[in-house]
């Protein structure tokens, strides 16, 4: 049962973005539309899962002095793979994501999970932990993108939802600051239900 909680805890009470405040850097800029947000989410799930797996497999052989560099190299390699594959098979989306794919490397979630979890646990557990945290991150991304695309352009995945009823897109939603305010509101709602997380 512990394995299941590896997967589900990051979705709720221990969400990496809104509880641990990790990985927001790359989170918000890709949330203008749902499609890039989903692709970004999947990319992060892939990178967290496999960097956790690889580092967990290597954990007994890594010289401690170059630990950080080894982590960075493994993560960067995975990110480059993701970037190359996206460019070849999802060109449009990869252009929208532009530099943000590269920034998965410095996404604190990836490094954070490797450092805090994978280096001390077995490969399979680490892998699930990575998937879980990636999912937790992707979830926030999708929620933010949902509101921004719906109210900003009146569409979802580019399909007209409310614009047909005469809704005029609110451009403010498309500007970067609104992403931050939406995350603020998500944290507000989340902490209202999880009172133990509230700061005194």
């Amino acid at each position: 049962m512990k394995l299941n909680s590896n997967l589900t805890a990051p979705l709720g009470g221990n969400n990496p973005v809104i509880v641990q405040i990790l990985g927001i850097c790359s989170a918000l800029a890709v949330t203008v539309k749902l499609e890039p947000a989903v692709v970004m989410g999947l990319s992060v799930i892939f990178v967290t899962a496999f960097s956790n797996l690889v580092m967990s497999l290597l954990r007994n052989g890594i010289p401690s002095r170059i630990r950080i560099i080894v982590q960075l190299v493994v993560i960067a390699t995975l990110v480059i793979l993701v970037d190359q594959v996206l460019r070849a098979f999802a060109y449009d989306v990869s252009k929208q994501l532009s530099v943000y794919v590269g920034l998965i490397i410095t996404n604190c979630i990836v490094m954070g999970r490797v450092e805090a979890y994978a280096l001390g646990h077995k490969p399979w557990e680490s892998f699930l932990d990575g998937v879980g945290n990636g999912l937790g991150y992707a979830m926030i991304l999708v929620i933010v993108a949902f509101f921004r695309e719906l109210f900003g352009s009146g569409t979802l995945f580019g399909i007209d939802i409310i614009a047909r009823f005469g809704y005029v897109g609110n451009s403010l939603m498309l500007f970067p600051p609104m992403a931050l305010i939406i995350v603020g509101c998500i944290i507000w709602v989340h902490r209202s239900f999880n009172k133990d997380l509230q700061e005194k």
Partner: protein
Amino acid sequence: METLNLFIRSIFIDNMVFAFFFGMCSYIAVSKSVKTAIGLGAAVTFVMVMTVPLNYLLNQYVLSPDALGEGIDLSFLSFIIFIAVIAAFVQLVEMVVEKFSPTLYNQLGIFLPLIAVNCAIMGGSLFMQQKVGESIMNVGDSVVYGLGSGLGWWLAIVMMAAIREKITYSHVPAALKGPGIAFIITGLMGIAFMIFTGIQL
């Protein structure tokens, strides 16, 4: 003029925090007091000024297509090279500062490990790579861009810390205390920064 334009733009308009959300993790975590914010901001600016030009040179003379020889394109390695340069540089600075100036190390040192994974630094290098040939034409420009972006980040975190010091006296809803309100403030500051849009010198 172009260079001045680039400088002003990278501080105010393309502000790392407000326009691109770069370096948000440490931005939210370390903006509780003005003093630490100034320390971290200084460290980020310093590392940016050094790593952006370094990566610029690597990009121009090693990574870009045909740089090493006809038909050799190493641009797919840029992520890994950039992050390695940043990590190595941060490590180096840490060791040098520790050896020669223990006082500075005590003030700055605690922030240095945080910086290697600060997206603002990596973001600075990646944006530099995109701007090559458009607004960044030579090493000088890349120094200016690094400095501007660093200062922009510094400005943002110090302002944020000042606001958060004051906000402890306000009645913020319990669930919003801490990161929640910090996000909303950043958003509002971002809207305020939008007035700089379109400034052209």
